């Protein structure tokens, strides 16, 4: 960096300090349930043991992010006391203030000066640079992640600069307003630079409101209050325990019996919620979005699904609303590739859906599917025979069975192949399948994250291996659009395009009926399972 540019940067930082964007205090105003009380303990449901300890940057599973949230902090986070995850609901955590500069090409964070790691070391800008240089695999990164599922989120970051211990500047290759939202995800915590990242697989040194006390493998994760937490007066609770219960029936019974105070995000179906409510009317059940969708992946590199007409026929054949009614008993909503409103920000409006394949009148849709199949050379005398792969887990198999039945009605004879978890992602990534029933969870409701992960050419999570130059341009275009209304329109066009191409037809978006006991206060489930659960504002009304 030249002397001139240093001076320019220093001046702009000075100005930014004055005019910094939403200078917000950390989330600290629990709105529900009266005056907060200190003390107490909560038992929280954990569906399975930690996949890779607390190494959040090395996983993409809620089983890791949910019980890790109390240990960590982000630069910014979605307000934990508000359900909606919008830009307006972003609040500072480790960053006191932030500012976009140079027409959204530089993002400057001004860090808190009173933060300590759980081992007593001071938190500085070095930790931020360490974390994101490692995640984006910068050439001079001081450490490397063993598995790095979100490298693509930060592909637009050119450099990260730390002018002083409490200022960080993200220099971007092009404007990208969505970056701030991705930094607020539960998948974007700050690691300590003085700790080997591999050690997060067995322990957790964070800056969060709770310190890890013990992780008894396969049994529980215990946290105790962090007395040095930088938000004065937080957390309210003395301790947390995430109880690992593998069996779903036992988990539900434990919640019903009061041995657990809080359910696991994404765990409670509509039917289960109704049964729980009937058994314990006092339980607080909140229907929320999950940002998890059911979708169909089709191998676009091999016949017959290299033919867009065949892909489109599949999309037309599946009655989304019937799937929601029968398989999910109403516990899901229709939508395209972004989570629909009111659960998401970017999803298409209800009125736009009928124009998409598979969303119109079922009889018309199926007729259209038969027509397309005929054009592709398939007929009742020469039916299309395919193998439908899916993960050998009930929630996948139920959906796949429904889809097979729908395909049969238009003349596609599909046989079900159940694939063990160990084989599912290798198989999908290598394209060793014809058609598959899949679930996709989005770490954050942000088009950049979704399209770069699941639709961009060459992305390892683009299981269909769909690749369109036009779509790539559209992804780039929406990503750098600064006008919110214009960006919304671009994203709407993008959603229509990928559905019309049957790139990865989305069938529905699952809902969660998040359940907790009424004595749990200040815990607000979000419309995204990955980004809440910091627990700093949560308190217990009855000891």
């Amino acid at each position, binding site marked *: 960096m030249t002397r001139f540019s240093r001076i320019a940067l220093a001046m702009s930082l000075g100005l930014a300090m004055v005019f910094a964007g939403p200078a917000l205090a950390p989330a600290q105003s629990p709105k529900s349930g009266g005056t907060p009380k200190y003390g107490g303990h909560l*038992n929280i449901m954990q569906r399975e043991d930690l996949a890779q300890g607390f190494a959040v940057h090395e996983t993409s599973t809620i089983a890791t992010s949910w019980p890790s949230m109390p240990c960590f902090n982000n630069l910014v986070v979605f307000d934990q006391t508000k359900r909606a995850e919008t830009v307006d609901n972003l609040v500072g955590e480790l960053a006191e203030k932030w500012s976009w500069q140079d027409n959204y090409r530089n993002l400057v964070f001004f860090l808190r000066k009173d933060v300590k790691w759980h081992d007593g070391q001071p938190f500085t800008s070095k930790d931020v640079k360490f974390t994101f240089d490692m995640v984006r695999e910068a050439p001079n990164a001081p450490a490397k992640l063993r598995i790095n599922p979100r490298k693509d989120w930060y592909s637009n970051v050119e450099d990260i600069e730390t002018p002083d211990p409490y200022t960080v500047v993200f220099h971007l290759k092009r404007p990208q307003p969505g970056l701030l939202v991705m930094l607020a995800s539960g998948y974007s915590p700050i690691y300590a630079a003085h700790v080997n990242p591999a050690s997060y697989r067995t322990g957790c040194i964070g800056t969060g409101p709770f310190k890890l006390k013990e992780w008894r493998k396969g049994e529980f994760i215990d946290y105790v209050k962090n007395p040095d937490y930088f938000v004065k007066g937080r957390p309210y609770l003395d301790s947390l325990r995430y109880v690992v219960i593998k*069996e779903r029936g036992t988990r539900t019974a434990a919640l019903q019996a009061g041995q657990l105070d809080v359910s696991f995000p994404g765990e409670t179906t509509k039917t289960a919620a109704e049964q729980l409510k009937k058994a314990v009317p006092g339980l607080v059940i909140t229907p929320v979005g999950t940002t998890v969708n059911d979708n169909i992946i089709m191998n676009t590199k091999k016949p017959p699904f290299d033919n867009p007409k065949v892909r489109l026929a599949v999309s037309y054949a599946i009655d989304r609303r019937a799937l929601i009614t029968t398989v999910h008993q109403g516990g899901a909503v229709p939508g395209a590739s972004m989570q629909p409103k009111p659960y998401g920000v970017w999803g298409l409006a209800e009125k736009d859906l009928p124009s998409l394949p598979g969303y119109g009148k079922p009889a018309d849709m199926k007729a259209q599917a038969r027509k397309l199949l005929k054009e592709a050379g398939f007929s009742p005398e020469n039916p299309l025979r395919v193998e439908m792969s899916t993960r050998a887990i009930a929630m996948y198999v139920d959906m796949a069975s429904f889809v097979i039945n729908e395909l049969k009605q238009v003349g596609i004879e599909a046989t079900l192949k159940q694939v063990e978890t160990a084989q599912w992602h290798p198989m999908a*990534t290598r394209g060793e399948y014809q058609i598959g029933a899949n679930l996709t969870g989005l770490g954050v409701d942000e088009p950049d994250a979704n399209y770069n992960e699941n639709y961009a050419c060459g992305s390892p999570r683009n299981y269909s291996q769909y690749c369109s130059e036009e779509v790539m341009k559209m992804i780039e275009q929406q990503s750098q659009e600064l006008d919110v209304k214009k960006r919304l329109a671009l994203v709407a066009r993008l959603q229509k395009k990928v559905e019309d191409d049957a790139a990865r037809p989305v069938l529905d978006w699952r809902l969660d009926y998040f359940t907790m006991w009424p004595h749990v206060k200040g815990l607000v489930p979000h419309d995204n399972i990955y980004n809440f659960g910091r627990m700093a504002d949560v308190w217990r009304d009855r000891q």
Partner: protein
Amino acid sequence: MKTYIAQRLAVGLLTLFGMSIVIFGMLRLAPGDIVDILFSTGGYVNPSERQAIERELGLDRPVWEQYVEWMRQIATGDLGKSYRYDLPAWDIIRPLLPVTLELAALSLIVAVALGVPLGVISAVRQDTGLDYVLRVFSLAGLSMPSFWLGMVIILTLVAWLGWIPPVTYVTPRENFGLHAVQFALPALAVGYRSSALIMRITRSSLLEVMREDYIRTARAKGQSGRVVIWRHALQNAILPVVTVIGIEFAFLIGGLVVTETVFNLPGVARFLVEAILWRDYPIVQNLVMVIAIVVILSNLVVDLLYGFLDPRVRYGH
């Protein structure tokens, strides 16, 4: 006797060696490995990152080399590290053993306490109404999987009482009462199934013995029915029952998977399944070997019991 035990232990060692080859081979034959699972948690696969992890875990080495390394580790008392948890395998396995051994022992106590007396009653009252009731009871026990029974118990308790046993393991030192409650219900669920088997074996074995001449002689000598049954008949009918008890114990050590899962007990069986799903070879291999050792030792104890129960049984030279 000492020679016999030494011979059996030597054969046991050979069995363990065979077991080690079988379990090692079967694990490698199963599709996928830990690296696939790790990538599954990330939702993608990257070939170069994959190779790096394989190298880190030693999975890139030839299979025979991996086997020799495992044998070397066993010989030096080091069971290697869990791939998943990055902790010494023995540190993970050790706390699981007491939980499963306790549950298996309690289940067997329930099974024997129920199975033997009911089997005797059923045999003595052959073809009476009571016999039919007991046979239905035992048939139900055999037909109902213990995990199903366990789940029914849990759901019934929560529906009627709004209560279930603790879902977090409580050690006897922490709270003996809660610990007892935590183990009582799974022991009943598992013990009921085993008792059904023991009852049927006891019944059929006793019925066979009751037809022997010496029983008729004992009755002719004027001995009471109770003495004839408990002293003469049962003592001779008990050998097959002891065999079944031994087999049941061995089965329970590895076969409590679903019961441990339903009652959320951190035992060997539940953890073994989890380790298999994760292809955590060091855990699976060593855990299976530990289970095999328990099975071999329990078989030896059963064989030694034969000699104690029936003086006609003599051990080899």
